[in-house]
């Protein structure tokens, strides 16, 4: 199945979390802090909120808590 990350299509295996998909592709920065610093996943279990991305137009979704779906639209640094 495929997901769209920042407008580009990527193949992912079913069951992959969005965070794992992004890391596999080579993203380490998932979002920007209020002052523009790059931030990425820390805990991998929904607690630190550092892995937030935009999924399907909804901002501030924790990438580590969501499993990739076919044709999912994911934006980093949104």
């Amino acid at each position, binding site marked *: 199945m495929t997901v769209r990350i920042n407008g580009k299509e990527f193949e992912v295996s079913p069951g992959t979390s969005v965070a794992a998909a992004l890391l596999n592709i080579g993203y380490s920065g998932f979002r920007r802090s209020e002052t523009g610093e790059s931030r990425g996943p820390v805990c991998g279990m929904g607690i630190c909120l550092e892995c*937030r991305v935009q999924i399907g137009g*909804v*901002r*501030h*979704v924790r990438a580590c808590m969501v499993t990739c779906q076919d044709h999912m639209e994911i934006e980093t640094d949104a």
Partner: protein
Amino acid sequence: MTEVFDGIVVGGGIVGCACAYYLSERFPKVLLIEKGPVGGGSTAAGMGHVVVMDDSRAQFALTQYSQQLWNELFPQLEPSCEPRSTGTLWVAADEEEFSHVDGKRKLYESNGLRAEVLDTKAIREAEPHLREGLPGGLLIPGDSVIYPMTAAAWLLDQARLRGAKLLQGRAVVKMGQGKTTLDDGTTLDAHFVVNATGDRAQTLTPGLPITPRKGHLIITDRYPGYVRHQLVELGYLKSAHEMSNESVAFNAQPRATGQILLGSSRQFVGWDPGIDRNLIAKMVARATEYLPGIGSLSVIRTWVGFRATTPNSLPLIGSLQHDPATLVAAGHEGLGITTSLATGKLIADIASGVESKIDRNPFAVSVEVKS
């Protein structure tokens, strides 16, 4: 000889700070006493909607006067006070509510305020995340939003620049007849003392008819532009005046940060500080009736605060009949951020013996003195 103050203000919430602000324009020796952080009481818990409210003639006059005073201060406020002209959009849930909108428009316009009726199409253009098919609403463009805690601190800072003093970290245990006793036993003298302790005012001035009314608020993460105006359901006043034990009304505020502050609940449960999860769920459900997508946004915090409720929903602003050196500025229910400045002006007028711009009688204080 011990120092005699012109005026002492007890309580550094937004009301006490506004009193100090205007008193310090007229009196050189003003002292404000706050036991905790400035603006840390109900002021820290409130929403900061500066709104002209039409629930009674007196409330309309007080809120309108206070809004004019806020508008005068807006250009001077620090950016941290986050003053924003969001306007208020009163949203009708059904045709019945919508049928009252034009009457409300006329009332605001006859008092010199702008008001605009929005139909079903216009309301969604104004607020694209509102549910489709809502009949419309009323836009009051002159209303605004501030950040209450920093605004309170700013007012006090200005008062201190004019010479007012702050005594922080000491609670007042007794006040009356110009004497103020602190929790370390010290007694201070003043020509007049203002009780501005909000929902606690009846403990320092026994007999004041004030009851705490608890409110829950919810704040989301940052979603800039998701909501543009302060949104309030038209049924809000119905809910606010319901003296039942529990009510929920839809109220959404866009913060300067892009966060959305969601209200609101009203409960008579004393000073119980707990978060009621069922009530939070009811508030979200209520908000979802207006903003169907709101459930997909992340909430970062919920909290509660207490409104100082009076029997007629009007604040108590005035001196005690049996003790004219004691002034009361408390009981501001859910409007104290808005009405703080007018309250400060009225208190300064009373203390300096001059007439006020609005009729003070509706706010006169009467206490049941137990003998």
